[in-house]
């Protein structure tokens, strides 16, 4: 209780300091909270950016496609490498090494291939989501106790039954964690791609507001985008909890 009050108090104090300092300094650059509230109202009433619903929907679709591709490719690659010991040993470390490269180095090449439209954002979101999912599947397959698989097979369980009854439950923890990280990174990939250069989507609106020094609108757009980011993570953590309950 006391901690919750202190948390709220800290937030309120920060907003108050920001408000006062922002007014005293340059309100256009510092964007005090009082300037954000009317901008947010105008944005949500579609007065400042009538394109908001269309742009938001485009960004959501880009994230959806990027994540679906990342899940499909990550599960495929992860299981292929996990089931084959030799390939897993050889290629697993290579994938892990590529994961150590700051992913944004690939973005200019993707922009060159796919242009400024949605395709380059989808490709970047896919790329960011792909690695954690693949590595999580790889780690998960290694967690499965081979004796359990052997015993199940000896008692006559088929490959499909072994997969769903033995392997999946014992690797679910790692797998679901990887899927959640993958979603977070796919979302970040699409947003980063849009801000680094795009014609439509939330990133394009943010850049438009920033370029015209409409800072109140800029902060309002950032808040709406943050809602999308937080919403996707809340959804993912809910699914994660359900999956974990199922595995226990």
């Amino acid at each position, binding site marked *: 209780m006391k901690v919750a009050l202190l948390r709220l108090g800290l937030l309120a104090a920060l907003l108050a300091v920001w408000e006062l300092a922002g007014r005293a300094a340059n309100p256009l650059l510092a964007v005090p909270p009082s300037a954000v509230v009317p901008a947010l109202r105008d944005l949500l009433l579609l007065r400042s950016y009538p394109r908001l619903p269309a742009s938001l929907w485009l960004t959501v679709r880009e994230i959806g496609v990027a994540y679906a591709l990342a899940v499909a490719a990550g599960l495929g690659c992860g299981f292929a490498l996990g089931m084959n010991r030799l390939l897993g040993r*050889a290629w697993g470390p290579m994938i892990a090494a590529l994961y150590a490269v700051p992913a944004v180095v690939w973005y*200019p*090449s993707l922009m060159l291939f796919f242009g400024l439209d949605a395709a380059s954002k989808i490709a970047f979101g896919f790329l960011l989501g792909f690695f954690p999912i693949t590595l999580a599947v790889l780690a998960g397959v290694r967690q499965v106790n081979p004796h359990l698989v052997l015993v199940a097979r000896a008692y006559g369980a088929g490959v499909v039954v072994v997969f769903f009854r033995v392997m999946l439950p014992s690797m679910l923890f790692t797998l679901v964690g990887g899927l959640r990280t993958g979603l977070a990174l796919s979302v970040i990939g699409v947003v980063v791609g849009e801000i680094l250069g795009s014609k439509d989507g939330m990133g394009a609106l*943010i*850049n438009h507001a*920033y370029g015209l020094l409409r800072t109140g609108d800029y902060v309002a757009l950032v808040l709406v985008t943050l809602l999308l980011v937080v919403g996707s993570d809340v959804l993912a953590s809910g699914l994660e909890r359900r999956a974990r309950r199922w595995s226990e």
Partner: protein
Amino acid sequence: MAPGTMTTSRALQLATVLAGLALWELAARSAWVDPLFVPAPSAVARALAGNTGPVLAGLGDTLAKTAAAYVLSVVLGVSAGIAVGSLRLLRDVLSPYVIALYGMPKILVLPWIVLLLGYGTAPAVFYGALHGLFPILVLVMGAVRDVDRNLVTVARSLGATPWQLYWKVLLPAIVPSVLAGMRLGIVFCLLGVLVVEMFAGVRGMGYVMGSLANGFQAPELFAATALVSATSIAIVLGLDHVNDRLSRWRG
């Protein structure tokens, strides 16, 4: 792992890379892919060899900014992590904010940072440090929280001063987490610096790569991408090596 499997996987890794390069070269030469977008590896190598001056200057600039951002994020991350981690009330109040900021896509505040700090070096160092700070802070906070209470109690009852408690008990206990944070942090710092250079750069690799992409200079772009990736992998492997040596020394 048996030495035999080790060499087999090394051989397989080498074979994969060579086969990939050969296939790529073949695809580009026989025009299965458009060389305007996917230049042959040989063209990339030529571009790298013929363009070393500006590319190395860009890389040096990026690495200098990354180093400054890294020092900032390690110093701030470790000291704030120790402070917040060891004071219970501070930790309880701040940790949800720290976790939220860690997970938030920082690119959303980048336009604002550029408005406040302008183009060039300052926003790159600031944004790079912002990127590197959170993984280090989160890891160190957790490590300080999880220091064995018995060790602290024993040291206290033997009459250790607070200073001795920090220096002799706490610091040695959190070293592995600090090192893990430093390994994560360097990639995050480099990422942050490159993003700023692409968004609002006037120099550096991110800027170079952005303009190469806009100019459709694919061989030069691929060469620059390969160079930055190789540098980053080398830095991380170097840190891993130092980590290994340190942990062997710690026993």
